[in-house]
């Protein structure tokens, strides 16, 4: 009996490890990676496992349970690797969604292939419960502890192994589970042998990185002759690749003046997850190599404040640091979330100007949030999305960018010394998007007469001081004239989007913002999505403009999210609901009202659970600044807490009067949810000052009680309807599973548009509705 629990523990651990490793792998091989989509994939696999097992009920009684479990665990191990290898063969270009049907087909295949390993894991857990109903609580406990450990395993694997090997390690966990459970001696032998081979591969010194779609920036760069990866570093944070293009070096000088006649020095390319690109500029050591800096807008703050004490947010490829050194700053501090980037750049052969010198670089704080508790002050604070994007490691335009929020802008102002300058460099989009959001935050934070916007052909520099910039007017004008840069604000006698936003008439500003094709809502800690400017009304606008891809007013990552939602709906109908229809729909005999209540209850709790989970993970990304850690902590906490709650639910269900207990539970759940919502928001301000690890404990300590309460409703509902007919149970699983598949993506869309608090509150409201419906479920059973 013990080996059954050990098996369930192992396979659950393998399943969650695979889920989190998949998140990192897809970020590397695909253009866009969204955590909601991967959770959706996992839930889809679990959902159609439920439908599949409904067909196998008779088979359960006759089959040898241990063989059945063994086959499924082995199939998980095989499919986890093969399905991933299969999807890497699709040359997926998400931009093609705008004009072609091929990406939709690929998305469908992605959903089918990548959900398959979860299907086998789910088969193992569900069958173990079916085979040993009298030990259900112990099976469930093993499942939860295994899943909890899976989060940790994934994080450790990704820290110490290349991503491809982390996948093999997840598969190895499945093989080990097979060895534990298989009743055949030969099977044990073969399993142990194949496990040993996988183990050898995992510990071998040769790295294995999966090949990405040819549309990823790194893959495109590698097509250029004589291009090679010089160095690569992988961690749970990100994969960093340094690339040399010997024949045709990279040349990256955003905003370079049209009047510059020299040469940009040789550069290496620094790719984050094969996507985000930065340049690592080399040089022969002479000052002339860096003359081009003088002809970029980014050098203006350093010209206006000589011998400055500087803070830069985001390291990028180190070019911002070189810019500061070129201007002889007296002190430089760089805030960078990924400490490994410092090590990586620092370890490069300093055949060119070193990226930074010990004498200048202060010990970097981990996160921009840590500035909130700091007392230090600076002459220049520089935030650059072109040279050192602080959000580069999150991966998607849909992710949170805490450095570009109103709260952080207020902090930057507080950290400025008297006469200090705050500078932001952004890409000059047309029509303007992020630069207008940043400008709105500047207008909310700094005096208008001390703010300035200049543009080059490619970039925008927004400069704001604690005092008016009158003394510098002439130098700014001369700098702009020398380089063909344009002053967009202040601007006398003409208007543009920046002057329109800066006008005193608030009503006119409001009208302008409403009518603007992109969302200009000021990002804050509740909705820190600086890079996503898509409006929810985009479909209507697009249809009105003849569905022309040229007028598609959304970012590719955002549209990918909607395409994934569409595909999740198709897959859950095809694989979860339709297979169940012929089996049991005719046997659901209850009044329409009761059936409606049944559908509402199980949809509502499926929706709320997942929406809360995803919203919290999104919040954790802001707090921790690291997607994989946020996902590991979030999913593990919800699984363990929810599982413990499900165990407790059995006792609660037997208490009378059940309706009162049930309603009481939902009330407590919603009340604690409200507390958690407030607490997580407050944590953003105080957590950076906690000692290492305490912030994680605080987060887990806050989430687990809510997850515990969220574990009750499903079991309560199932126990009530199970008395009526087992077919209701199958349908309850199916409805709950299908809604969960969609909700994981809907939650992401919700947090993008409405922020954490509204999305979280909406999920709590739906929970409350489920609580109100709970008493009606009794009528089905009676």
């Amino acid at each position, binding site marked *: 009996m013990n080996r059954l629990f050990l098996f369930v523990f192992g396979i659950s651990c393998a399943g969650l490890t695979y889920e989190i490793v998949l998140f990192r792998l897809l970020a590397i091989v695909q253009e866009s990676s969204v955590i909601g989509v991967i959770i959706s994939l996992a839930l889809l696999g679990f959902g159609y496992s439920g439908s599949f097992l409904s067909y196998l009920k008779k088979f359960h009684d006759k089959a040898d349970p241990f063989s059945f479990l063994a086959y499924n665990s082995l199939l998980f191990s095989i499919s986890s690797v093969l399905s991933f290898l299969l999807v890497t063969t699709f040359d997926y270009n998400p931009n093609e969604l705008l004009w072609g049907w091929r990406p939709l087909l690929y998305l469908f295949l992605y959903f089918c292939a990548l959900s398959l390993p979860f299907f086998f894991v789910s088969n193992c857990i569900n069958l173990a419960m079916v085979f040993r109903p009298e030990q259900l609580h112990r099976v469930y406990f093993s499942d939860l502890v295994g899943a909890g450990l899976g989060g940790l395993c994934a994080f450790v694997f990704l820290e110490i192994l290349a991503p491809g090997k982390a996948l093999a390690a997840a598969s190895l966990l499945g093989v080990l589970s097979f060895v534990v459970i298989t009743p055949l001696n030969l099977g044990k032998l073969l399993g142990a042998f194949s496990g040993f081979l996988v183990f050898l591969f995992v510990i071998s010194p040769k790295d294995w990185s999966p090949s990405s779609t040819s549309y*990823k*920036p790194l893959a495109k760069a590698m097509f*250029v002759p004589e291009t090679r990866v010089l160095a690569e570093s992988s961690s749970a944070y990100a994969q960093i690749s340094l690339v040399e293009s010997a024949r*045709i*070096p990279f*040349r990256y000088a*955003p905003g370079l003046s*049209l009047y510059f006649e020299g040469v940009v020095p040789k550069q290496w390319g620094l790719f984050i997850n094969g996507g985000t690109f930065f340049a690592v500029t080399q040089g022969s050591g002479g000052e002339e190599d860096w003359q081009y800096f003088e002809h970029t807008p980014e050098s203006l703050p350093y010209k206006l404040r000589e011998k400055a004490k500087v803070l830069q947010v985001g390291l990028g490829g180190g070019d911002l640091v070189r810019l500061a050194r070129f201007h002889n700053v007296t002190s430089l501090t760089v805030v960078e979330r990924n400490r490994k980037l410092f090590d990586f750049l620092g370890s490069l052969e300093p055949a060119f100007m070193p990226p930074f010198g010990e004498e200048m670089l202060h010990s970097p704080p981990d996160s921009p949030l840590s500035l909130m508790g700091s007392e230090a002050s600076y002459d220049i604070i520089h935030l650059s999305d072109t040279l050192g994007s602080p959000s580069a490691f999150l991966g998607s335009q849909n992710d949170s960018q805490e450095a570009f929020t109103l709260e952080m802008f207020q902090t930057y102002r507080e950290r400025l010394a008297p006469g200090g300058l705050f500078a932001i460099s952004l890409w000059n989009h047309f029509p303007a998007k992020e630069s207008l959001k940043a400008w709105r935050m500047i207008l909310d934070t700094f005096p208008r007469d001390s703010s300035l916007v200049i543009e080059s052909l490619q970039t925008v520099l927004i400069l704001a001081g604690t005092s008016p910039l009158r003394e510098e007017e002439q130098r700014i004008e001369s700098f702009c004239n020398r380089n063909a840069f344009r002053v967009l604000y202040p601007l006398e006698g003409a208007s543009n989007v920046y002057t329109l936003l800066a006008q005193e008439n608030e009503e006119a500003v409001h009208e302008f913002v409403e009518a603007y094709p992109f969302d200009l809502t000021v990002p804050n800690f509740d909705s820190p999505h600086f890079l996503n400017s898509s409006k929810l009304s985009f479909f209507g606008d697009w249809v009105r403009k003849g569905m*022309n891809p040229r007028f598609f007013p959304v970012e590719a990552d955002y549209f990918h999210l909607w395409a994934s939602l569409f595909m999740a709906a198709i897959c859950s109908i095809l694989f979860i609901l339709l297979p169940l229809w012929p089996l049991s729909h005719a046997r659901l005999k209850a009044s329409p009202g009761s059936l409606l209540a049944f559908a509402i209850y199980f949809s509502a709790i499926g929706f709320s659970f997942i929406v809360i989970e995803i919203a919290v993970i999104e919040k954790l990304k802001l707090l921790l600044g690291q997607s994989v850690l946020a996902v590991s902590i979030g999913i593990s906490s919800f699984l363990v807490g929810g599982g413990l709650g499900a165990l407790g639910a059995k006792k609660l269900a037997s208490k009378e009067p059940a309706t009162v207990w049930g309603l009481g539970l939902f009330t407590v759940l919603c009340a604690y949810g409200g507390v958690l919502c407030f607490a997580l928001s407050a944590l953003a301000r105080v957590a950076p000052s906690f000692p290492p690890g305490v912030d994680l404990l605080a987060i887990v300590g806050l989430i687990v009680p809510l997850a515990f309460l969220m574990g009750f409703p499903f079991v309560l509902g199932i126990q009530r309807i199970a008395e009526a007919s087992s077919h209701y149970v199958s349908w309850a699983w199916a409805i709950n599973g299908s809604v969960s598949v969609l909700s994981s993506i809907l939650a992401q869309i919700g947090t993008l548009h409405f922020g954490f608090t509204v999305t979280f509150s909406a999920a709590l409201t739906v929970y409350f509705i489920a609580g109100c419906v709970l008493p009606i479920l009794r009528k089905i059973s009676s």
Partner: protein
Amino acid sequence: MTKPLILLIYISFALVAADKGARPLGWEGELMDLIDTIRQEARLTSYSTGRGDFAESTYAALRKTPRHLFVPPALRALAYFDQPLPIGYGQTISQPYIVALMTDLLEVKAYDRVLEIGTGSGYQAAVLSHLAKEVYTIEIIDKLGEAAQKRFEDAGLKNVLGKVGDGYYGWPDKSKAPFDGILVTAAASHIPPPLLKQLKVGGRLVIPVGPPFQTQYLTVVTKTEKGVETKRILPVQFVPFTGAINE
């Protein structure tokens, strides 16, 4: 009651058949439909481009260039749809509307010498060859450049000269410079100064500018006696533009 209905259906069929009959069969007919689509889109985008329609010479050049010869055989059925198509190596052949727009923005005259950076499949250079006296084109990826050169030879385009190499410094044989027009079909974080040097005063440089691997903005740079004038046209997406160092 039924007779007029049958008559109406008959007339409808006849009208449709007549309309189809006005167009040649095969790719020529598809190309004419494509040009109609481009005309419509040119009108739709006139607010951004500042051109209500493209010059007839641009359409004539498109008519002389069979696009299906420049796309992979497996995708030839899609050659006359107004959409980009993959050509391998993470590259795409541009949407025909963009090819038409860039050609039109360049305002090529019959005696002009034009430089293109980023040959790709060779389609854009082939279109330009019907407008300019000489077209020079450079491609970074060997296999693409060689395949394009073969297509030029097969199509008998004698005024197109292709090279595999780095476009950052323009055409390596400086005696061919300055050019009347330079067209860049690869994205650049900045406008390469050497390209501006190879542009004639009064010449036009059409280039997508913006963050690499993201949306860029099609930009027209006009070189004047006093300096340069720039105008952003439309958001586009091109593969990145890299450049070699002069050593």
